[in-house]
């Protein structure tokens, strides 16, 4: 086995002391993890211990219990592809003072966050970790750090957490909330107005909310969905429906809630609704659309098999496809 690349710790290093105290447990947990994941290598674990856990343990008043809490997450993060391990290491080391105070909770939460981001199309876990580290000094405690992380994750594309992110923005100190929204220069006094605009229109970006610009014409904002064998959710071409402020889609076998806003789209499996309707939308000849007090002509919608709308989003199934076009006023 090649061990030359492992940098040996000073025995007086708090990480070394903590490892010595928990040696048998650490070794046993490694073997248990390797039984499940034969590709787990000692070198990778040593590197993660040094780079991710080390900075936290050194900041901790109780290095042994900190390592005890972090070690299972180290094993969970090592070898995860798609930048999960790198992003987690970056977040852990960059937020070390916070993690040292609550290693078990934050170690797990940060790992779960980078895993979810990694599984989200278009999201970049490493970019999220970098932004979180930039904000770490402004966070007064672990709760504030996690709230800021939730806002950043929403901006990365975790649209299912839109409501939670907006609630977090309201809880955070105004400068930190605005920085998390990507508006570090905004006037803290404007926060309530910005949050109101963001809450009212899912297609409103933080920049537009800060500028106060009104939405303009109806346009296609994004296309989502797809065939299940090609990475999409649907086994058959879908139809769409609306239930209150929720957009739904079904392929005849299952139902999904469609989350969509300026940062991305996501499908969430749900039970079949008790009742679902088209919503306040009318499709006319030649692709004429009447919806939410506006009227527009979108020629591809002339043959759309299904359409449904909420107050802010119009969903239209693209003919002969498994995909759904989402329209809103830009």
């Amino acid at each position: 086995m090649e061990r030359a690349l492992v940098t040996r710790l000073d025995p007086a290093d708090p990480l070394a002391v903590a490892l010595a105290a928990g040696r048998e447990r650490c070794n046993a947990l490694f073997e248990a993890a390797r039984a499940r994941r034969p590709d787990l290598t000692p070198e990778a674990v040593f590197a993660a211990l040094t780079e991710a856990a080390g900075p936290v343990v050194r900041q901790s008043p109780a290095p042994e219990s900190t390592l005890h809490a972090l070690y299972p997450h180290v094993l969970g993060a090592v070898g995860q592809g798609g930048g999960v391990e790198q992003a987690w290491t970056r977040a852990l080391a960059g937020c070390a003072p916070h993690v040292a105070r609550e290693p078990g909770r934050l170690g797990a939460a940060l790992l779960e966050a980078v895993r979810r981001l990694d599984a989200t199309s278009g999201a970049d876990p490493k970019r999220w970790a970098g932004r979180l580290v930039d904000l770490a000094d402004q966070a007064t405690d672990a709760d504030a750090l996690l709230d800021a992380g939730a806002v950043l994750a929403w901006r990365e594309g975790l649209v299912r957490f839109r409501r939670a992110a907006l609630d977090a923005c309201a809880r955070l100190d105004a400068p930190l909330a605005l920085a998390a929204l990507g508006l570090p220069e905004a006037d803290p006094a404007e926060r309530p107005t910005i949050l109101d605009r963001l809450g009212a229109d899912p297609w409103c970006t933080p920049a537009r909310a800060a500028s106060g610009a009104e939405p303009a014409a109806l346009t296609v904002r994004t296309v989502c969905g797809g065939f299940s064998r090609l990475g999409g959710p649907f086994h058959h071409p879908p139809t769409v429906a609306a239930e209150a402020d929720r957009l739904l889609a079904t392929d005849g076998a299952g139902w999904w809630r469609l989350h969509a806003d300026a940062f991305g789209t996501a499908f969430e499996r749900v039970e079949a609704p008790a009742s679902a309707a088209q919503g306040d939308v009318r499709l006319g000849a030649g692709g004429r659309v009447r919806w939410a007090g506006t009227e527009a002509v979108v020629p591809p919608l002339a043959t759309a098999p299904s359409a449904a709308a909420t107050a802010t989003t119009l969903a239209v199934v693209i003919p002969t496809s498994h995909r759904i076009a989402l329209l809103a006023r830009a």
Partner: protein
Amino acid sequence: MPDDPFRHVPASPTNPGAPAAARDFDVADLYRERPPEAPADAAEALGEKLRQAYFWIANTAIISPYYDIEYGDEPPAAYTFGDTDSVLTLPSGQSYSSFVLVPLLTLAVRRRCLLVGGPGRGKTATAVLMGLLAGYSRRDVRRAIQHGQPQMTLTDLLGNPLPKDLVEADDIDAIRIAWRRWLGMRVKIIDEYNRIPTRTQSALLTLMGDGYAEVLDQVYECPEAAWYLTANDDAGGGTYAVIEALRDRIDVVVKALHFSPRFLDDLLARVEAHVRPEDVVPPEIVFTEAELDAVDDAIRAVRVPDAVRRRLTFFASQFEFFEGAAAQFEYKTKDTVKLSGGDVARLGERDTGTDRLADLGAQTLGGLSVRALLSVLVYVKAIAFFRGRTEADLEDVRQILPFVLHDALVPNPDAPFFEQPGHAVYRLDRVGWVRELFDLACAEYDRLDRDRDDPVAEMEAEFARGLEGLGAREVQARLTAIERLLAAWSRGRKLTGHLYDDLLKLKYLHQRYTNYLRWLEWSGRS
């Protein structure tokens, strides 16, 4: 000619072979200085030291000329004697005396060994030698022996509260205990443990099982230790019946055989030289605490290859299944019968359509506990390490199994197997019986061609590669494969122990895939 034949340790390698592999993950590698020797070399040196210790004991200290753990590269020469066709074999490979080897392996893996045999057979002397090999003085070892006797109390075993504290203390926490010194030793010897009263046996159980002693709410944590218990009669002939839980904590049982008068000359030499073996243990074979830790590490690193593990699995699958025990599939076990107060032997006579002579499970009254299987694995690795191997082989399992399962596998004396010509002897000879059981299981394994035809093993291997990244289509295909296999096997096959475990494994796999598929669908990843 060496100066002192009793202390002489030959310099020649005892069993040249491939070095044992070192443990490849140890967080200590991150902070401690690398040892001067490469780990593999160190493990090999310790293996050699262990073998030297064995040969010194077997050739010089304990006169035990019984090579009952037999190895060979080719079939042994065999000679038959007497009207009962008693067979004497001459193994072609290096073979060992269980009475010396098994206690020595117990020292290496720090487990619990019961030495049984009549008085004066060297049981206590062997245990004392193990204490000396662990680095203790003869005086310390002798003083630390706990002699079982009918009046033995908890305080005799564990220690006394200090009388001054008993008088002056305001609360129970202030009462200090003068713990007996033997509790802190890494070799513990209980002589004639079946003469200890039942209540004191319970304290011994806590010590052996959980590694701590308790008196008046004060707790003493004991270090990991090798335990040696002796008994003149293991079949219930002691002053007190041994509680079952205590018996269950014993990992391995070895018999002290009789003294062969053909070796009287050796005894005479000792008398004339006025030598007791425990006074002349060569320092080269005494282990430090760190060396014993390293031996334990090296033994754990010994691999049990897939081919060996599968035969062991097949063997262990034979015993717990009991078709008439329950309606629910999962409860069709001998445990269910015993927990309901039923009689496994009597109920087993009912016809279930299986051939009770061929069914190995019919020969036992119970299955194998997790503890027994753990002990099997540990001792299989230990004997392989002792032989200088990095991987255990089938013969390691075959040779060590009878000693580990000696008390763990209880025979059903009413089973048809024991009525067969020449088999009555197995009612008395547990070592021979367990080895015969293993041989029969291996023969059945070969008959079924399980090395090449084991669809469950293939499915296990497929599952072991992990679920991460697995698509719904592949999961569906695997679920269908499981269902097809179950449907095929349900047509006209007799339900046997190994099939029962296969079916439970298939159900487990089916459930894991079903849950995963459900998660895939609900998370939108299908």
